[in-house]
């Protein structure tokens, strides 16, 4: 057997091993996805039914209210709210984070380290400690149960980490590039958009994915600050499947699939940027 072939077999074996490890890691999640396509009596059977015998879309049909057996869950408005809230708050957090990150990377000012650390520590305040005070403040401002109310909260959840990543990224880019552009007649603003920003794109993408996932999946604060279809997000909508005495687990799993798929697609699309973004973002400098 020649050496190249041996290496190939070795590589294939390694790939397979890794794949198996990944799959095992995903089993609890895959079980949820699969359960979305099975009826309750099959998922919760004892003795268990290992091989699905009755794959069905009826859980989804019920969510959307087809068959009119129950009041439909307003999943489209939840989906819309989640999209609007997650995307808007991510974009705002990225802009604020880029400005802040640029300031940390390119300027020297007093209390710089304290300000940086302060921003991080603010993020560490547990959501449960904030839930009531934020609620009171928001109701005073009249933004309870609005998309805006949740967007503001999520922006603040995501700003610190975004600043961190983007700061690290701008440090990577030699300032001489920007200076050269300015010598050539660009303003600092132009130099930023033409030279520095394109180079930092991966970092921005990585920060964006993290921010999006945080906002997309957040439950604790959303469950406090939203009330109706005006602003309820998908994770809060999961609670529609619980009643006082019962939980409709199959329905919840179907809803979970609806939540997971967009996030998974987004993550897959920005994979390439994600790794390189994180590589330079955090540490070097």
């Amino acid at each position, binding site marked *: 057997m020649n050496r190249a072939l041996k290496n190939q077999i070795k590589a294939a074996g390694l790939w397979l091993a890794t794949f198996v490890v990944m799959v095992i890691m995903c089993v609890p999640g895959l079980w949820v996805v699969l359960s979305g396509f099975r009826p*309750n009596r099959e998922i919760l059977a004892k003795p268990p039914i290992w091989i699905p015998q009755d794959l069905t879309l009826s859980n989804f049909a019920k969510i959307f209210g087809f068959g009119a057996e129950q009041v439909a869950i307003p999943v489209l408005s939840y989906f819309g709210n989640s999209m609007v809230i997650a995307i808007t708050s991510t974009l705002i957090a990225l802009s604020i984070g880029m400005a802040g990150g640029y300031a940390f990377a390119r300027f020297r000012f007093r209390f710089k380290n304290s300000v940086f650390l302060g921003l991080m520590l603010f993020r560490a305040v547990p959501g449960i400690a904030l839930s009531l005070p934020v609620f009171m403040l928001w109701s005073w401002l009249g933004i309870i149960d609005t998309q805006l109310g949740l967007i503001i909260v999520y922006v603040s959840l995501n700003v610190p980490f975004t600043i961190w990543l983007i700061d690290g990224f701008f440090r990577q880019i030699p300032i001489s590039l920007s200076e050269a552009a300015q010598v050539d007649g660009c303003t600092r603003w132009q130099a930023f958009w033409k030279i520095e920003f394109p180079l930092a794109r991966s970092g921005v993408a990585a920060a964006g994915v993290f921010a999006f996932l945080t906002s997309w999946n957040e439950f604790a604060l959303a469950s406090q600050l939203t009330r109706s279809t005006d602003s309820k997000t998908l994770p809060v909508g999961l609670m*529609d499947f619980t009643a006082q*005495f019962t939980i409709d687990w199959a329905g919840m799993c179907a809803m979970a699939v609806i939540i997971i798929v967009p996030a998974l697609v987004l993550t897959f699309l920005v994979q390439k940027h994600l790794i390189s973004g994180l590589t330079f973002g955090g540490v070097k400098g």
Partner: protein
Amino acid sequence: MSLNAFKTMAASAALIPALLAGTAFAAGDYGSFEDYTLRVKLIGGAQYEPLYAEISKWEEATGATVEILSRKNHFELDREIKQDIAAGTLDWCVGSNHTSFAPQYGNIYVDLRDHVSGDVLAGFVPLVLEHSTVNDRLVQLPRHSDVSNLFYIKSLYQDADNQSQFAAEYGYDLAPPETWQQVSDQAKFFANPPDFFGTQFVGKDEAITGRFYEMLVAEGGQLFNDGWEPTFNSEAGVRALTWFVDLYQAGAVPAGVPNYLWDDTGLGFASGTVAMNLDWGGWSAFFNDPENSKVAGDVGLTRAPKGSAGIRTGWSGSHTFSVTETCDNKEAAASFVSFLTDYDRQMVEARKGLLPTRTQVWDDAKAEFRADGNDFLVTVFETYQASMAEDAFTPPLIPEWIEVSNVLWPQLQAAMIGDKSAKEALDEAAADARIVMEDAGYL
């Protein structure tokens, strides 16, 4: 209740519109509120939703529009209402309520006797209206009631081997239990862990507090004495708690019960792995539905057994509707809650197996089931009607009930899993409960 249970129930209720078309619906009955928008917060969940499909009829009759601000499960709704009180945002009119939760909310709800006529109120079961009264104010109109009775697997009791073995072992005949002592004996007799269990109970939160509380009453004890001193660490209390501890430690109930809530016990009995199950009436249809339940067709039901004091357990609560004091059109709100609890609406809910609060509906629903040949539901309604009328009692209707429950249930669990003796656990809980009552100004 799962969607599947719902499916069959919905199928059986497909006749509703046809039936309703026959009943005279006088448009003037509920007043006229043209162009008014009534803002409401309702309890959500599969078994509560069919009623809301009726709302459009009220809208048609009165010309008003109903805006449902939120539809959540009761614990979430409770939190939301408390936040509304805190932030002063009670800008809605009608809210779902529950007899156990109502005392917490102080005076945010109106006394409905000022807004609903005596004729209407006369149709309700008197005991249930009494349970809906807090500080002499009728703060809620009951929609449907809940109390628990004992479901069991019939064939186990008919089996000749079981009968002879049980009689030999325990010295009396095997029959559906009359006392909790018998439940305990039979549970141990049937148990064969991990495949089969004698019985089960919910094991955390207000659920276990309520189960302990009804057992305490059945043993002749009380939570508090007349001066609001906690007295549940009495001998009766120890006996009540020991009943749970003993079954748990004997392995006659699933090892996971300290983490069980209502869905676990319901699904557990439906899975055919539990011999007896004390549970709410709302589960009846589910248990007897072949789509969802392995024991369908084999379900027996007997009234909740008695404790050593000769009293039957009967922890009860009712789902209700309340009208806020801040409501800008209390007349419309009162009309709406009267509509949701009227005869026709209760029949809609009764057909789904929910227990009505109007005397007339109990009888008419039974007659209807009998005419349909649905003997099981006839038995269910007879059993539950008897216990609602004779056995039902509520927890103390004080705002501190949930708080007392929260100091009590971790101690109940501690005794169950063997961290403490029953007496120690109850003594500690009583000491903590005393502090709660002191803080609240009772002592």
